[in-house]
């Protein structure tokens, strides 16, 4: 009986040790926190661009508020979350989705070229990855941290810059992503889009999209 007891104890110890190891191995969040989520703000109805009092944080230099002529965006800077990224121009894929930079270049963003350019009247869209196995957190990992008043600067091919100010950030379920996030505005606006919310391990996709809404301040 003593031998049997020893075997049971040895098996129990081995089982517990293996269990602890597997539990740690299976929980890969130990390396990175999940992407930050914006606080709920009902962005599309919360505030229309150009309406109401403007938030604080004045631009660092004078910007002329006239809408701009179309010019290809080349780079993006978001000081509040330490983002400086290249922008490439992409269109639609065959399945109707926007073409995106490859995950192998997770710090490159993409401008949706069939739509307005940043600074033009209408809504300019820029996509970026939230994470990538190559690096972990990617270019728009901290998009959900942006708050009203944060500034976004876009450098254009004609060497001008377009300055935008965040007025809302929202997390939407992909299945109910409102078409209005792409709706064109009379005043220039910018929308930054990435993935967010719960990650579905079965489909290997996030269930949501984080969208940041920014209004045009001016050109410099």
């Amino acid at each position, binding site marked *: 009986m003593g031998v049997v*007891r020893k075997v049971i104890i040895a098996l129990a110890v081995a089982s517990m040790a293996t269990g602890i190891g597997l539990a740690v191995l299976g929980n890969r969040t130990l390396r990175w926190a999940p992407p930050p989520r914006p606080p709920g703000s009902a962005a599309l109805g919360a505030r229309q661009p150009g309406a109401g009092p403007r938030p604080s944080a004045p631009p660092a230099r004078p910007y002329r508020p006239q809408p701009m002529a179309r010019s290809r965006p080349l780079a993006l800077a978001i000081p509040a979350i330490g983002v400086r990224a290249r922008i490439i121009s992409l269109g639609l894929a065959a399945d109707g989705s926007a073409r995106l930079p490859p995950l192998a270049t997770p710090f490159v963003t993409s401008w949706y070229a069939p739509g307005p350019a940043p600074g033009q009247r209408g809504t300019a869209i820029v996509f970026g990855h939230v994470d990538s196995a190559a690096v972990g957190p990617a270019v728009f990992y901290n998009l959900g941290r942006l708050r009203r008043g944060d500034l976004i600067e876009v450098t254009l091919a004609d060497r001008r810059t377009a300055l935008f100010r965040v007025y809302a950030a929202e997390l939407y379920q992909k299945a109910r992503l409102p078409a209005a996030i792409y709706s064109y505005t009379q005043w220039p606006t910018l929308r930054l889009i990435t993935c967010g919310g719960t990650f579905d391990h079965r489909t290997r996709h996030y269930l949501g999209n984080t969208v940041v809404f920014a209004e045009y301040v001016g050109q410099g």
Partner: protein
Amino acid sequence: MRLVQRAAPLGGLLVPVIALSAPASSSPVGITPDPAAPGTSTTFSVDCASLTAAGTATSATLIGTTLGLRAHISMQAGPQSNEFVTTVVLPAGIQPGRYRPDIDCGNGVSASGTLTVNPVPAVAPATGDGATATTANGPLTAIGLGLLGGGLVAAGAVLGRRLRRARD
């Protein structure tokens, strides 16, 4: 501005109906925003007084057929006399392209404006592979927690038995 005359029956007689077809800069029709995206709101306005001889209009109707909307959409009176406005939601399935919906004013003026519909992504973007996403409920964790629980139960049983024997 180019004036186009066409005949239309009125009270049994054929009388000329004056239609305005003009470049965007001088068009009596305003479209905001233009271009527009499928599935989003677009506002049409018309100045029915663009031809003074036509007289005052008391109503105006947007002909929505070409946009995939209902045929007759009544417009609301605007802030100025002879101005009318309506906001419609473009069908989500409208094809990208250029559209020229007509607007008929109650005073006989008919005008049209050009709306460009640009394509927008129809599928939500997949911008990430979950590298930073929580996997606390992944299969390895579940198996590990199961083994840990089993080990604890077995160890508890052996210890309990030993304690009972010690008491005896």
